[in-house]
């Protein structure tokens, strides 16, 4: 019986506690809110009245439509609310819960989903809206789709807080796309059924440093249950050194003085074997990954190796590319895109593909990652493409201090363009490149810095002062720690009631 209170909430207007810290040479501990959600809902009204929630008396109740996604979510959120990480909240051991006179109990949250949710995968156009009313035993969560219900359950779980004193991270932050940059120059850990040699010879270690088909399925299912899409990136034609080990003749041979020098460049776009390989490989990917989108990369293609290779020169002359290697890149991308389209799949590409003038399908999503993001966003949306922003959100680029604030204030719709253009910006992604990141540090480096981006992408553009939202982010960091993630401190000295314990 955890002693937990929920403020009565009628979701209709944003109310935020302002708790500005005085600038003292040694900063005082960062202030924290109690039971306020992150990211901020678009409409949020709360009263001062609280209700009591106990693990013995509370339950979630599904309406007419239910499914595995919803039932799993009930179990998960019940755990988040009443248990801390893998252990019970301290007050859970209380045998009797003191109820303040007249304080109502919240015993049921009814969750109504109005469309079928069986065997669904999250998609680019899923409906994530929800309506949450916490008002005595008339408390309801209503959503058109199960994805909205997941977001609403997350919010509900964040409203509950422990009364005593103080009071899997993407879903905690309502993020919905896991962009999995799965292979690159350095290694090819994806185990392909069609081309097993790719990981046999391209992984760091073919036994321990690979993702087997079972691993991949598990990750996709874990994400699905949380309403998260898995968009895999197989970057080409550059960043493919590791592909060459297991797929001979795929990469361009580099030449010195008209003889091969033993080095390899990007994928060789001039030979038909390249495209027959890609057809088989892409077919597998569209079968393994249920999302309608594949990320095809297309960034940072170096031309020097292509330039050195006499066969490529001949090919260029034949196609009258006029020594313009961007045209060769376009030729490759065009073929690749056609292959993907032939499987009825959509694709995401890095901005270079469009910058270099490759003709892409109109439903292509363009990921902007370079500087001058405003000009680029204006250009990409002017051309009618949907775009997602990453330029200002490279979280691997670390610096001292509260750098989340600059992530928070970066607005993807801030550029010169029409309303229609702004609407083409469908979101953004934070990126955590792995040069200096692995399992030892990826979690604290991602959270709660990534939460800043989560709120930017979910909540109203009017919320923009990072100082005002600091106490709420403090609460959110401590909430993630309580749920077992080692989210690092980002607002100077301070404390969480439940600190991170590696062993738990």
């Amino acid at each position, binding site marked *: 019986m955890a002693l937990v209170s929920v403020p009565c909430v009628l979701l209709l207007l944003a109310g935020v506690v302002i708790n500005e810290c*005085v*600038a*003292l*040479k*040694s*900063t*005082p*501990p960062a202030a924290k809110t109690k039971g306020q959600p992150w990211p901020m809902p678009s409409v949020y009204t709360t009263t001062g009245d609280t209700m009591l929630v106990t693990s013995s008396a509370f339950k979630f109740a599904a309406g007419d439509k239910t499914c595995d996604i919803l039932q799993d979510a009930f179990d998960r959120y019940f755990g988040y609310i009443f248990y801390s990480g893998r252990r019970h909240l301290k007050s859970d051991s209380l045998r009797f819960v003191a109820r303040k006179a007249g304080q109502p109990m919240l015993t049921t949250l009814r969750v109504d989903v109005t469309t079928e949710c069986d065997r669904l995968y999250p998609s680019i156009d899923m409906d994530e809206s929800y309506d949450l009313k916490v008002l005595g035993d008339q408390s309801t969560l209503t959503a058109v789709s199960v994805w909205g219900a997941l977001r609403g359950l997350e919010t509900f779980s964040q409203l509950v807080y422990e009364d005593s*004193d103080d009071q899997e991270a993407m879903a905690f932050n309502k993020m919905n796309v896991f962009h999995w940059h799965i292979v690159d*120059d*350095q*290694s090819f850990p994806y185990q392909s059924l069609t081309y097993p040699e790719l990981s046999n010879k391209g992984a*760091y*270690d073919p*036994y*321990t*440093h690979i993702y087997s088909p079972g691993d991949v399925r598990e990750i996709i299912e874990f994400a699905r249950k949380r309403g998260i899409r898995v968009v895999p990136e197989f970057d080409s034609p550059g960043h493919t*050194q*590791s592909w060459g080990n297991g797929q001979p003749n795929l990469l361009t041979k580099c030449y010195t003085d008209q003889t091969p020098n033993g080095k390899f460049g990007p994928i060789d776009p001039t030979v038909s074997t390249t495209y027959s390989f890609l057809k088989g490989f892409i077919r597998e990917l569209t079968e393994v990954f249920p999302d309608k989108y594949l990320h095809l990369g297309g*960034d*940072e293609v170096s031309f020097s190796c292509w330039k050195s290779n006499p066969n490529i020169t001949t090919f260029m002359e034949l196609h009258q590319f006029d020594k313009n290697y961007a045209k060769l890149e376009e030729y490759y991308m065009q073929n690749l895109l056609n292959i993907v389209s032939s499987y009825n799949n959509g694709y995401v590409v*890095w901005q270079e593909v469009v910058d270099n003038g490759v003709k892409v399908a109109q439903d292509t999503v363009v990921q902007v*990652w370079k500087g001058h993001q405003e000009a680029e966003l204006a250009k990409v949306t002017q051309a009618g493409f949907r775009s997602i922003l*990453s330029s200002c959100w*490279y979280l*691997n*680029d*670390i*610096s*001292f*201090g*509260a750098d989340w604030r600059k992530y928070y204030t970066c607005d993807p719709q801030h550029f010169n363009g029409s309303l229609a253009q702004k609407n083409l910006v469908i979101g953004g992604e934070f*990126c955590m*490149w*792995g*040069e*200096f*990141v*692995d*399992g*030892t*540090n990826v*979690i*604290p*480096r991602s959270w709660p810095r990534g939460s800043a981006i989560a709120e930017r992408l979910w909540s109203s553009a009017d919320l923009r002062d990072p100082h005002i939202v600091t106490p709420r982010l403090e609460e959110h960091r401590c909430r993630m*720690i309580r749920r077992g993630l*080692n*989210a*690092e*401190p*980002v607002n*100077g*000295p*301070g*404390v969480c*009631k439940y*600190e*991170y*314990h*590696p062993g738990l």
Partner: protein
Amino acid sequence: MKAKSCRGGPVMKSNGFVAAPGAPWPMPGHWQNSTDLMTLDPHTFDIVSNANGCDVIENGILRYKRLLVLDPDGVIDPDLTTISRLAMTIENVTCGHDYYPHGDMDESYTLTLSPDSCTLHSNTIWGALKGLETFSQLLYLTDDKKYHINQTIIDDSPRFSHRGLMIDTARHFLSVDVIISILDAMSWDKFNVLHWHVVDDQSFPYPSRTYPNLTYKGAYTPYHQYSRDNVSTIINEARLRGIRVIPEFDTPGHTWSWGLAYPELITPCWGEGDEGGPNKPNYPLHGEREILNPMNEFTYQFLDRLYQEIVDDFPDQFVHLGMDEVYYACWMSNPNISDWMKTMNFTEYYQVEQYYSQRLVDIVNNKGSYYIIWQDPIGNGVQVNENTLVQIWKGDDEQSWQQYMSEVTSLGYDAILSSPWYLNLISYGEDWKTYYLEEPYSFTNDTKLWSKVKGGEACIWAEYVDGTNILSRLWPRASAVAERLWSNQTVNNVNDAQYRLDQHRCRMVRRGIPAQPILNGYCGDYEWTHQMAPLN
């Protein structure tokens, strides 16, 4: 789409000498490696010593026998000579529960590994621990999981006697478990001083017996303070690893949390001189209660009793008195301080600092303790006793740390260096290389001044650090400092060092510390979070 430093290929090995497996970190003084291989079975391998009954050695042997098991599936190589025993000889087996590592300890050792005999010779138990660590690092697994160890002769001793790491438990609390993990990793790097910056403005987690209210009111919460038992555990675990614990109770500045229980200790700062009244901040010049009151006798009586407790609790001969960042602005704002200065015939504020510093130094001297201070008072013109050890932490474009070091050592003080080694100041990429290339002697060519440099400390201030990230942020970046302080001055090629350091970071991962990557690549058949990691 990598904004910076895309390596663009498989792990490149074009620069630097790629160390063979089983390369030690920090680099020993003399390392005669051979390509002749031997093998051993860690499950039956024995380590014996002439120090039976000495808990430091017995615990050390246990610890290292465990660390020799690199993989549960590892086996001997039947084609090689199997060694079965390491015999330790310690010349002077001084040992006991009240015998602690100290500033003059002899940490040298000689390690000889041949098919005929494997011996570890040292003058003290502290040297023996260093030798065990090196021995454990020489063992490695081949790709087919056979244990190999090269025939080797190592004759090793540290370049500097003070090789420290400073942790801050005031800005964020660190649990005892995390601190013991830090001690573990420190011992693998042959660090020998844990500088424990226990308290500060933000909180007072130290469990004072004499003034329990300091803790009761000064700690963040009752969960965020140490118990008496915690403190003795930390000191004892450090002793077992040959690490000194030097506590810092920083005064007269950085004492906001002290004033929560004892407001009378604190100088009331005045808003705007006579006009503003006491206990009023005048930002950004000063806060409202940030600095001890130097004119009250109560302050010194209080410090006398508190420091008695500190020297009783901490066995090291040294305590750290802090003394950094004394903000004169608060004293200047207070008319009572001005009046008192007249009665003392003080005309300058450094004289107030001088007065305070001398009183505190006398208190500590009377207890038979030595002390370290941050460099600030020296820069303000304050004279301290000539046996003071001064910690250099400043240095910027205007005045380099070399200039500060030169000033302090020229005045005759011994010094330790920290300025270039603030590990909390993070940036993208391979910042360990800049730590590695800092040379403590680079401030002068005068060898007499060189002898004043006793070593250095890496510091990790805790504004943005707690148990969630401290281990991965410290390691292996602190290891770069460790090698600078242990190994010869001539060991300074980062291109060579990076491969040995990469091995070392993987060794730490295997031993249970989430040391972060420094190169693209991977750690053999184990990684952090891989279920198969055999230890921890």
